[in-house]
């Protein structure tokens, strides 16, 4: 402790002398790569410990790690949102949870654990969906960190934070730090809404999800996966009627496994196991503590550097592949010119003159840089097709078979919306 001195700066009654001895070394002095705007010492310590309010989205594999790191680095006002409850398969990595916690809400258990372990830190949990909260709620935070496994939720928070930016109010720009992992691979990135590339800008970097054509599943199964899909997509509704398949229910998985196993045997296909059945129907992504630790630490390190200016922060994408040695790639992901979220301009597309509305919708669902589920379409004057309410759906349904060119003039605009996304996409349609 020879280098330390008592630190009254930014301390509160729960702090003990030298509590922040390690962190304070980088807060009291700039380094060679520190921005000149860094306010070393008291001011930055007070901001971090007394004023900064940070939101963590997700209290799962990344979230548990993020909460612990933030608490130790000195963030004291932390909020966390998660809609999930704890499952036994979380315990190999979500280290704030114990077997006795299975079934309880993640956000609440995680918040309690952190407050118990790291004195003086307040973690405010919300057990629910991010979509339950409005602009006013998100406006209260200085920073947002996401540790999510859902593309849809990421797109939603990204679009929300971009739409909140008001050029007259610098406080309205909330840096978004996003992390994600899959097995030994992961990525962390910093998004400054409207300034850097946003989540929507990089949609085409996502892996295309594996899908099996229905005719293969029904008629020419070759792989164990085809038999499992047959059991879940075709046999389950046939046998169970309206009862919904619950992929978290082991009884349901066992039933699917039995059915898939029998079909595989009939067709001499090998390899249907309980584990594969669960993996296919739940779309299970392998997850380990170590990768989550790396990515969460990278995210929290960026949050710490942004909140304190103690060092330059990531510009703007860090990608890690840990299967063969430690390979990482840090680069600046560029803004997408016609990004529907932060680009502000309409996207021009060319389609065949004979395409029906239904074909256009199919393209919008499949196109890597759009990926809109259940789109609703309209021109500035009238609806083309609406998914809901039911009456409007019924009224617009006949349009599905019509040619787009009969409804929209060349160069005309079509607005695409979806209930799962908080933004609308403007398309300028041209015909070939």
């Amino acid at each position, binding site marked *: 402790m020879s280098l330390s001195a008592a630190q009254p700066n930014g301390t509160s009654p729960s702090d003990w002398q030298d509590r922040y001895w390690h962190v304070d070394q980088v807060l009291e002095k700039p380094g060679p790569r520190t921005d000149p705007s860094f306010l070393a010492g008291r001011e930055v310590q007070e901001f971090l410990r007394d004023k900064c309010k940070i939101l963590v989205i997700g209290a799962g594999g990344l979230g548990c790690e993020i909460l612990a790191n933030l608490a130790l680095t000195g963030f004291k006002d932390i909020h966390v949102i998660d809609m999930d409850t704890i499952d036994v398969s979380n315990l190999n990595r979500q280290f704030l949870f114990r077997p006795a916690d299975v079934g309880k809400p993640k956000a609440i258990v995680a918040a309690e654990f952190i407050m118990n372990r790291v004195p003086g830190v307040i973690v405010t949990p919300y057990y629910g969906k991010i979509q339950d909260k409005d602009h006013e709620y998100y406006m209260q935070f200085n920073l947002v960190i996401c540790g999510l496994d859902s593309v849809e939720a990421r797109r939603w928070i990204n679009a929300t934070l971009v739409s909140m930016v008001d050029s007259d109010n610098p406080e309205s720009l909330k840096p978004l730090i996003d992390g994600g992992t899959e097995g030994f691979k992961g990525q962390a990135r910093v998004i400054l809404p409207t300034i850097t590339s946003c989540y929507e800008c990089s949609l085409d970097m996502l892996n295309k999800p594996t899908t099996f054509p229905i005719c293969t599943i029904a008629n020419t199964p070759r792989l164990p996966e085809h038999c499992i899909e047959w059991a879940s997509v075709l046999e389950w509704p046939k046998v169970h009627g309206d009862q919904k398949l619950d992929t978290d229910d082991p009884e349901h998985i066992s039933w699917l496994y039995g059915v898939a196993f029998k079909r595989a045997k009939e067709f001499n296909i090998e390899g249907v196991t309980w584990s594969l059945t669960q993996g296919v129907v739940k779309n299970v992504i392998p997850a380990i503590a170590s990768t989550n630790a790396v990515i969460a630490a990278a995210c929290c390190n960026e949050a710490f550097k942004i909140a304190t200016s103690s060092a330059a922060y*990531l510009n703007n994408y860090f990608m890690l592949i840990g299967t063969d*040695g430690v390979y990482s790639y840090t680069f600046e992901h560029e803004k997408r010119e016609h990004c529907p979220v932060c680009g502000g301009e309409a996207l021009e597309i060319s389609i065949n003159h004979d395409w029906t509305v239904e074909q256009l919708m199919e393209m919008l669902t499949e196109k890597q840089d759009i990926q809109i589920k259940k789109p609703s379409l309209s021109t500035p004057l009238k609806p083309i097709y609406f998914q809901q309410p039911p009456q409007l759906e019924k009224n617009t349904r006949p349009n599905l078979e019509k040619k787009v060119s009969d409804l929209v003039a060349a160069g005309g605009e079509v607005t695409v919306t979806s209930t799962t996304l908080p933004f609308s996409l403007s398309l300028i349609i041209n015909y070939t």
Partner: protein
Amino acid sequence: MVDTESQDIETATTTLQSAPDAKTRRYDRQLRLWAATGQAALELSRILVLSSDATSTSILKNLVLPGIGHFTILDDARVSPADAGNNFFLEGPRSIGKSRAEEAVRLLLEMNDGVQGVADTRSFDSIMDTDKDWFSSFTLIISHNLHPTRLDKLSNLLSSNSSAPPLIIVRSSAFLAEFFIQFHEHTIIESHSETAPSLRIDKPFPALLQHALSLDYEKMDSTEHGHTPYVYILVKAMEGWKKSHGGNPPKTTDERKEFKKGILALQRNIDEENFEEAEAQAYRCWAETKVPSEIAQLFNDPALEPAAHAQSRQPFFHLLAALKRFTEEVEPHTLPLTSTLPDMKADTTSYIHLQRLYKARAEEEKAIFQTFLDKNVDIDEDVIDLFLKNAHGLQVLRGRRWGEFERDTDAFSGALASYPKETCIHLALSALANLTVKQPGVAPTAEALRGEVLAIVGQGTELPDALDEAIGELERAPAAELPNTAALLGGLVAQEAIKMITKQYVPIKGYAVIDLIDTTTATLG
């Protein structure tokens, strides 16, 4: 199929697995990466960690969670107020003054009751003096910011005995860090290589060739025609091509274009995806199947030389010796065929038939392979299967000693040119460590650090500007152990430890250098 249904249900229910047990459910998400074999290796492992500072407990957290068998923390320190502030596995002010190892072990064990943990509060030096062999009783040893004199002793001890465990050396200061694995030899069967084994379309085995040639497109109905697997289409087309081209495959770009065109010409209508697949996979006809150069190189390994005592060989090298003979003596001088077939457009019957052709041939080649195995060694059938299935991705790593890198002038100047920033970080961390020996308790100045760096690389060596940045960062916060750096190292180091223990995936070859200002990593040496 209908008339055998009752019997099918019976067999199905007798061989159906039951739902997984509690342990399998708990570890499900990692078993999908390293399977039961990897898990068993983890559960047999005994890890020694030579500190219980924030970095050490972060590493251990990521080893306790996936379920290692045992860990020991060797640490005689008491919890300081600063420790209590940056270590998640201490209970804040409640832990201050207590044994740091005991507190950490207690809190780490809370995460997984399948793991055994021991806090050893003896001093490192007393064990080194009186009980050296104790270190070799572990599977793996991990040190963080270990005093350089002790590190040298330990690294010497472990490198002098070829059966001593690997040592992972971790050093960090504020935003900068590095780690290195010192080990003797590491063999990997399951490297989880992303390249798939060859289907040998260019060198079809007799049954495959025969079946492909027996197909008569003219006589096929439209369903059969549109569901003929691309493997047959290519083998058949290739045979035809060779006949009219003096036994040669398409060589020039034009010939290859023509070959592809010929395949597409077989399509009855544009909906026949199998012919499109065949066109897209046509490169398999001229990408010659040979023993991959990385594997051929392994055949020169000193462990295979007759002088290397066959009795003391690991099973891996017995298998490798047999593989070498197989590729030398068995036509067509390739690795043994595997039965792993990718999915392709086909109907069930033809796909399963193709799969069975591959399987039968793979079994035949396996039987030949087994005749090449030393009769005096007993190797599990499962291991043989695993070895053959992964033969295209085998690896043998030979480690280096800690500190050897700096002594290898060529490698070192190469690193300085290719990775100036990372090499400077490595040098600056070495300089910092040296200063703790030379000037204990004195805050290092930039000048002193630079002097130490020059002492390592030799006066007069030209050093890049990146050195000033690295030195400046260390002068700013020499002893700072930032929670985020600790957590990040915790993840990376644990991951490498898991690869070493399970012998799956490929561990880092060299020094991993981490800069958490630019958020970059690189591998040196």
